[in-house]
């Protein structure tokens, strides 16, 4: 086994949860400022799950979702995925583009671009917060967007992990807007080698 991620101590799990908390907190603030609505977030979940079970975290592998995907470059590479159920993605687009809620039924080029920009801003805010905490410089790639089955979108992240092991470490935070219109899942999935780097940086190795 390359790295047995199953053997994280309670303290290490806590450290990762705190990383999720700080990162997602920053992201939630950014999102809140853009759409001018209060955004609540839950306590981040840190979970080590069999690869095949990851899609169940977002409503099952055939749930229709919009996903913004970014690779993370730097000393602790990984992937970021911002997933929104279809209705939430449309609602967010309506809000961003100044349309009436319910107007968006399919995404045009501008809508897609807007969603990718949201992914970009959230990822930037998340990684920026991580930097202050860990002093690890992490840079996001250009975002990419897909609207499809959750399993198909998640497989992009999972395939990278699949070469190394059979489990994924996911740091997941759920966002919820005050009017319940927008519900999103933000995933940070460190590449297998990155976990050690992050834990060392926060001093809980």
């Amino acid at each position, binding site marked *: *086994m*390359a790295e047995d991620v199953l053997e994280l101590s309670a303290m290490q799990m806590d450290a990762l949860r705190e990383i999720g908390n700080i990162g997602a907190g920053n992201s939630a603030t950014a999102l809140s400022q853009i759409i001018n609505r209060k955004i609540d977030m839950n306590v981040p979940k840190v979970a080590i799950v069999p*690869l*095949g*079970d990851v*899609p169940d975290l977002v409503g*099952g*592998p*055939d749930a*229709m979702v919009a996903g913004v*995907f970014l690779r993370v470059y730097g000393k602790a590479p990984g992937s970021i995925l911002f997933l929104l159920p279809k209705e939430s993605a449309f609602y967010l687009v309506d809000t961003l583009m100044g349309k009436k809620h319910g107007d968006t039924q399919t995404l045009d080029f501008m809508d897609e671009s807007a969603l990718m920009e949201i992914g970009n801003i959230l990822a930037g805010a998340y990684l920026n917060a991580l930097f202050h905490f860990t002093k690890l410089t992490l840079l996001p*790639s*250009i975002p*990419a*967007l*897909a*609207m*499809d*089955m*959750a*399993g*198909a*979108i*998640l*497989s*992009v992240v*999972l*395939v*990278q992990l*699949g*070469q*190394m*092991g*059979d489990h994924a470490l996911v740091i997941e935070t759920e966002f919820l807007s005050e009017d319940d219109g927008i519900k999103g899942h933000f995933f940070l999935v460190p590449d297998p080698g990155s976990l050690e780097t992050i834990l060392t940086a926060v001093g809980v190795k």
Partner: protein
Amino acid sequence: MPELIRVGMADYKVGRGSATIISYGLGSCIGITLYDAETRIGGLLHIMLPDSTQARSNENPAKFADSGIPLMMENILSMGGSRSRLVAKIAGGSQMFTFANATDIMRVGARNAIAVKTILKDLRIRLIAEDTGGTYGRTVQIDLNTGIYKVKTIDKGEKEL
């Protein structure tokens, strides 16, 4: 109500007769079905990667095309399926996100499809239908009564292979 057997990522299931085997939400992964029409024994394998020899962790043979297909085949044969009657149908292998400078890992769907075909050829299993490529997800299911392999998508409709 016919039995519905679910196959997760990097897994496979075999069965016979009235059962239907289904796998949801394939992206770059490929769903490979092997079927013997006479005994109505068949299976569905959901692979993620082409080659177990290139991976650092290969304890789970069902994750890879090169180790998963022979494994499922042996299982079908041990249930009484005939190797000479086995036919294959495959679906999946899409590219969900397009980047300008796509790395190898981003093109894994296409590499999966090539690997699957090579392995089927090596095993001398006839590939009689395929629906691979594209940029969209697929849900696949094999009806072991009829051998019909159904491929569902969100925007591109549904087809039977």
